[in-house]
């Protein structure tokens, strides 16, 4: 017993070590690849750049007097900023040519901007307000207040509000005696704790809640404006954004929400003083499904509206020029007379600095001054950034210096202004480029590490070491892992890349030292292994081409179909070659085996083809029409609600009913063991709860209710799942021993449909002992022993599938069902192939590369099937709110975990289910004896999976080789995407295509590693339990 446990542990340790080493390589690579921007802690101060002509206006000589300016004379005293979250430019644009009946819900609902611009063309301005990706609210607020560019990796901190440490406009305002009042989104409170003189903040977390924040802001806005104790009011409305998340832009709710915002803007304009500047702006836009986060035009193009009675803008140009969001900071700072924050990269909107009272010459001077100060500030920042040891691209930096010289040379004011503008634009461009800079050495060392671990895994799979693992090798592998981790930690903390290479050398040395164990014993690749490997290598090579990455969902489906069809073809060849003499079609293809093959193939192929319904469109797939599956129930038109509800519940019911039916067929759901009772009740109960929860959601959405208890069903499901999995891990046996014959008469069999039960005689084991113990007439009858190994796994997977459906949302329950069906069909085909071709149990239990390839392709296909794409806008943020309400109660990990579960559901499911690949042929051969090949001795194989329990070494070996092959393929995919990201790091499409692809694959690999480990651990646990049960039975007999 102890020995079994020990050996089982060894298997897990080997897999764990390989996974760990792969992860180290991956982390090393990503550390070099996803660099963050260096934050400079300096602040701008009032004395940095003085107004060159202080005598011109009296006050400017003295810093920070109320009403006086720091660097230049401020044109405005007060500012009101209305931040309407997700206000897209076309929401704000008024198109007079559209009739009221033809407008979409988001069009022409805010006529205030159009009217004001028309009435006061010199006092108001409406323009596109271009955000920098990532377009999440948190990143945008950072960008809008510091005036710098967010870097790629910051996006991961979206859920954790963090105080801004960099110099920013709010700090500058507060430092120079301006009082700031904040209303609305509580993200501001997290970013700037203690800065605001007055605040009315509301939780932004509940996306389903459209009104609380907006009503709160509106109820206080008028009152706050009436008070005299402010210089700046920031009012952050969230309703439009939440409405987009909940219903999408094309929904009547959006129209009412925008109309409400229109009203709010009108009220603010009515209550404004003459020396107040009004800014109405969106921090980002939204896609057609109401999401945001990426860099598509719809998400990036927000609206900016500037208005003040005191403004004097030049005549509006024919085409309104877009304004970058970083430009807000210098504009705001200079127009209120505070220093521009140190690391701001924006270009001041010089026209906003001109007020109506100025003469033409004064106005020109004002614009010139603003730009000049702006250039000086940006130059100071760039120099400081360079002094920290960062370098700029030589050509761009040189060009900047040239421009600066030119600007100073130019005598005409207009020429200087043009040069200043060019300088600022170029500086921003250059910074955008350098913040996508990489640590090439670190990336290389990570790649080398991954490659050598891949090599090790490949050798392990084919080596003789796998058949009998020596304990000392495992110990050394463990030591190697620990040392490599230490080196990794050193290389990160000291920044010496050499440690990464050292780890790599160490692994190679380890492999060299154990070469006699790692020698490849026999390498017999058959067609069934080679062709899938070739297909998979096509898939891997596709990572290097942007067009293949863009259409990867199509490519993966094609490869998967080819793999499945290859199985069918080879099976047909095998069938025909057996029956050479008979030429009749019906005779050859009419038997049960061939019909099962054909049905399995057809089911798999149709399911894969149907997955197109659930695919999500990438931005680059211009031909793709978004399907309805991505829209939640509440976002659909009314007449489709019932249809959607039932088409969502039906797949859910099927996904639970089919595995349940299988377990019943195998006789695993009899008796009253704890596990059996749970497996009978929990999945069904959970699926009913899911259906109930969907109904509650639909009712809430339809009647705008906020039911108190709507988070309860998901939480109950999570709890039930946790209990179910935990109990099954402790008592994993799903078998039923019939009581002995004497008591059996008095106690009739409790079973709903006894005809489907397959009573399984535990003959062979007992016969051995009957000879010793001749008076033992009682042969125990055990139900479900032949599938005892897989039944517990299936029972666990059933519940996991229900949770996955819950998190995926109602639209995608069909997708999860399709995934389950394709997986089942692949298992069937693979088992049939094994049963047809194998000569002994050892071959039968070792699935080989073909099964690993199929499973691997299926896992990637599943990712796309469940409506995902490797781009950030495609993340299903709505999953974060399944059973979670309010940020305070649960922290940030729960929503992040839920989104992760939603995104990587297929990797999780298939990783957990990997041991089924090993046992499927045995289980099928018992349950459907007609599929059993004639080559395998009938008596042996009829014991099914219990054979593997009796031969634990064989089970361990095949589990290990299967897991290693699967991990090898997944890691090879990640290696190829990393290599693609490395080689193509100057590619135009890097940040749009390759980098997100790499990040998604990398996280997917980690999910795979964890779930494979969990699945293996669980199976080995079941095996140990079954073995000890068998021993007990023998002792009792």
């Amino acid at each position, binding site marked *: 017993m102890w020995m079994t446990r020990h050996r089982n542990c060894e298997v897990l340790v080997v897999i764990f070590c390989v996974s760990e080493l792969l992860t180290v390589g991956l982390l090393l690579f990503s550390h070099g690849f996803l660099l963050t921007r260096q934050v400079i802690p300096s602040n701008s101060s009032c004395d940095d750049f003085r107004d060159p002509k202080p005598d011109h206006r009296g006050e400017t000589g003295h810093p920070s007097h109320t009403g006086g300016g720091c660097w230049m004379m401020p044109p405005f005293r007060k500012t009101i900023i209305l931040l309407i979250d997700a206000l897209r430019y076309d929401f704000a644009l008024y198109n007079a040519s559209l009739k009221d009946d033809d407008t979409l819900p988001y069009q022409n609902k805010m006529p205030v901007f159009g009217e004001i611009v028309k009435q006061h063309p010199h006092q108001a301005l409406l323009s596109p307000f271009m955000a920098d990706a990532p377009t999440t609210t948190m990143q945008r607020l950072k960008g809008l207040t510091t005036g710098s560019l967010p870097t790629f990796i910051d996006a991961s901190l979206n859920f954790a509000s963090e105080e801004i440490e960099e110099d920013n406009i709010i700090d500058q305002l507060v430092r120079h005696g301006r009082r700031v009042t904040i209303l609305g989104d509580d993200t501001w409170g997290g970013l700037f704790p203690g800065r605001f003189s007055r605040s009315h903040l509301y939780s932004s977390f509940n996306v389903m809640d459209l009104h609380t924040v907006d009503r709160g802001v509106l109820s206080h806005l008028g009152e706050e404006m009436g008070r005299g104790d402010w210089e700046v009011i920031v009012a952050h409305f969230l309703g439009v954004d939440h409405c987009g998340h909940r219903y999408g832009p094309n929904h009547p709710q959006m129209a009412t929400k925008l109309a409400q915002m229109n009203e709010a803007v009108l009220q603010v304009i009515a209550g404004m003083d003459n020396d107040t500047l009004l800014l109405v702006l969106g921090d980002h836009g939204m896609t057609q499904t109401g999401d945001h986060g990426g860099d598509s035009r719809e998400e990036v193009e927000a609206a900016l509206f500037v208005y003040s009675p005191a403004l004097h803008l030049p005549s509006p140009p024919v085409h309104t020029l877009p304004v970058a969001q970083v430009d807000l900071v210098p504009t705001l700072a200079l127009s209120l007379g505070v220093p521009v924050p140190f690391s701001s990269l924006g270009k001041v909107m010089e026209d906003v600095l001109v007020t109506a009272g100025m003469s033409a010459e004064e106005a020109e001077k004002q614009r010139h001054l603003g730009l000049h100060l702006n250039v000086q500030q940006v130059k100071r920042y760039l120099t400081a950034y360079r002094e920290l040891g960062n370098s700029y691209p030589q050509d761009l930096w040189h060009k900047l210096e040239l421009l600066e010289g030119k600007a100073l040379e130019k005598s005409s004011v207009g020429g200087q202004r043009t040069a200043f503008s060019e300088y600022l634009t170029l500086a921003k461009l250059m910074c955008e480029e350098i913040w996508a800079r990489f640590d090439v050495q670190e990336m290389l060392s990570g790649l080398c590490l991954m490659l050598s671990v891949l090599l090790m895994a490949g050798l392990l799979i084919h080596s003789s070491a796998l058949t009998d693992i020596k304990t000392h090798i495992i110990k050394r592998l463990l030591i190697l892992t620990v040392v490599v981790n230490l080196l990794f930690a050193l290389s990160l903390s000291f920044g010496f890349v050499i440690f990464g290479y050292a780890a790599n050398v160490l692994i190679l040395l380890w492999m060299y030292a154990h070469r006699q164990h790692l020698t490849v014993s026999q390498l017999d690749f058959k067609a069934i292994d080679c062709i899938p490997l070739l297909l998979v290598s096509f898939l891997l090579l596709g990572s290097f*081409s942007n067009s293949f990455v863009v259409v990867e969902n*199509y490519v993966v489906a094609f490869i998967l179909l080819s793999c499945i069809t290859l199985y069918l073809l080879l099976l047909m060849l095998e069938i*025909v070659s057996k029956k*050479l003499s008979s*030429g*009749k079609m019906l005779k050859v293809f009419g038997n049960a085996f061939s019909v099962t093959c054909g049905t399995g193939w057809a089911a798999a192929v149709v399911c894969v*083809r149907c997955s197109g319904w659930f695919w999500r469109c990438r931005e680059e797939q211009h031909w793709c029409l978004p399907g309805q599956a991505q829209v939640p129930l509440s976002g659909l038109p009314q007449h489709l609600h019932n249809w959607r509800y039932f088409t969502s519940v039906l797949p859910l019911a099927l996904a639970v009913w089919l595995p349940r039916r299988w377990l019943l067929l195998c006789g695993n759901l009899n008796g009253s063991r704890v596990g059996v009772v749970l497996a009978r009740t929990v999945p069904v109960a959970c699926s009913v709860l899911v259906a109930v929860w969907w109904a509650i959601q639909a009712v809430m959405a339809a009647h705008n209710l906020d039911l108190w208890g709507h988070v309860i069903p998901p939480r109950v499901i999570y709890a039930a799942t946790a209990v179910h999995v935990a109990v099954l891990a402790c008592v994993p046996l799903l078998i039923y021993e019939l009581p002995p014959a004497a008591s059996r008469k008095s106690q009739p069999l409790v079973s709903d449909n006894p005809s489907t039960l397959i009573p399984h005689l535990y003959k062979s084991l007992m016969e051995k002992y009957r000879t010793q113990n001749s008076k033992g007439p009682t042969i125990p009858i055990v139900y479900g022993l032949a599938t005892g190994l897989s039944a517990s796994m299936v029972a666990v997977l059933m519940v996991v599938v229900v949770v996955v459906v819950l998190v995926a949302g109602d639209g995608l329950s069909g997708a999860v069902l399709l995934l389950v069906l394709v997986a089942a069909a692949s298992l069937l085909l693979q088992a049939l192939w094994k049963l047809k071709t194998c000569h002994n149990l050892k071959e039968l239990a070792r699935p080989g590369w073909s099964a690993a390839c199929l499973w691997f392709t299926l896992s990637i296909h599943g990712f796309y099937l469940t409506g995902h794409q490797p781009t950030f806008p495609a993340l299903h943020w709505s999953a974060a709110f399944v059973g979670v309400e309010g940020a305070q109660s649960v922290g940030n990990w729960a929503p992040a975990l839920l989104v992760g579960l939603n995104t990587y559901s297929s990797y999780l499911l298939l990783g957990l289910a990997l041991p089924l690949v090993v046992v499927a042929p045995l289980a099928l051969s018992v349950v459907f004896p007609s599929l059993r090949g004639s080559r395998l001795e009938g008596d042996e194989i009829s014991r099914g999976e219990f054979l593997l329990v009796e031969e634990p070494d064989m089970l361990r070996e095949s589990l290990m080789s299967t897991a290693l092959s699967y991990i090898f393929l997944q890691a090879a995919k990640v290696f190829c995407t990393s290599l693609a990201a490395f080689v193509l790091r100057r590619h135009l499409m890097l940040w749009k295509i390759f980098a997100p692809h790499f990040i998604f694959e990398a996280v997917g690999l980690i999910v795979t590693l964890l779930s494979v480990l969990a699945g293996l651990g669980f199976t080995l646990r079941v095996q140990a339990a079954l073995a000890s049960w068998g021993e007990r039975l023998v002792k009792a007999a």
Partner: protein
Amino acid sequence: MFEQTGPHATNLLVLKNILCLVFGVGVLWTIVLSGYELASSLYSLRAYSLLVVLLEGVCRYLTPASSSEISAIAKAKTKKHSKIFETFLVVLLSVCSVIGTHVVVVLFGAYVIENIEATFTLSLLVASLAFIRPLITLGRSAVINLLERQNIESEVKSFAVLVATWAGAFPIPLDWDRPWQVWPLTCSIGAILGELGASVYFLSVLWSKGGTQWKNKARCFNQWYGEKFLSGQTDDTSCEPVYKQYQQCVKDALKKLKIEIPKIEDPSADDKPKE
């Protein structure tokens, strides 16, 4: 395999393959000349499919009993059923194969309704190259015969066409925006290239086989005649295997052409090389 084929059948086979080659190159040339214009390309592809089927039918008509034993079985069966029924069955199966190919192409990712004409043209092309031709040559049990790997020619051609069509899907996603990347063209061109490749392979095999057979016999005979027979040795065992091979070949061919020459029925008895 080819040893058993008579010279007439071999000639026919060579001719057929050469014609296949000419047709294939012709249709490719037409498509290229049209600048990959879709409508005309589809039209020429359909014409090509029809032409190929017709060619196969003519060949089948000219060699009613083709080479291998499979056709012997088929022939035996033809006697039972009427010939019209057999033809009807072949036509029915051909239509089914076109529909089946269409369904498989759609399952592999082609649009269901959009581009249906293009998809159907491709299915027609692939079905006529890979399925209808074997059906014509081998009769209704063609599928099993193909899987049994009996008739090398049909099998290699069918598989080459299918694999090349499949591989033709790979250039579609590339963003080169070339006219030949339009939907059915890559796969169709793949199918035709597969067919061309198989034809060339066959011609080369036929050439080398036929050539070496005849050459072997001639060389051996000359050697024997010059070195042994002229110097007085009448022992002719040295060329026996080669000669037998050749003779068998000729005999089979004569049998197939229904030319009865009773004299050469028993080679060991009377017919030895005596020039």
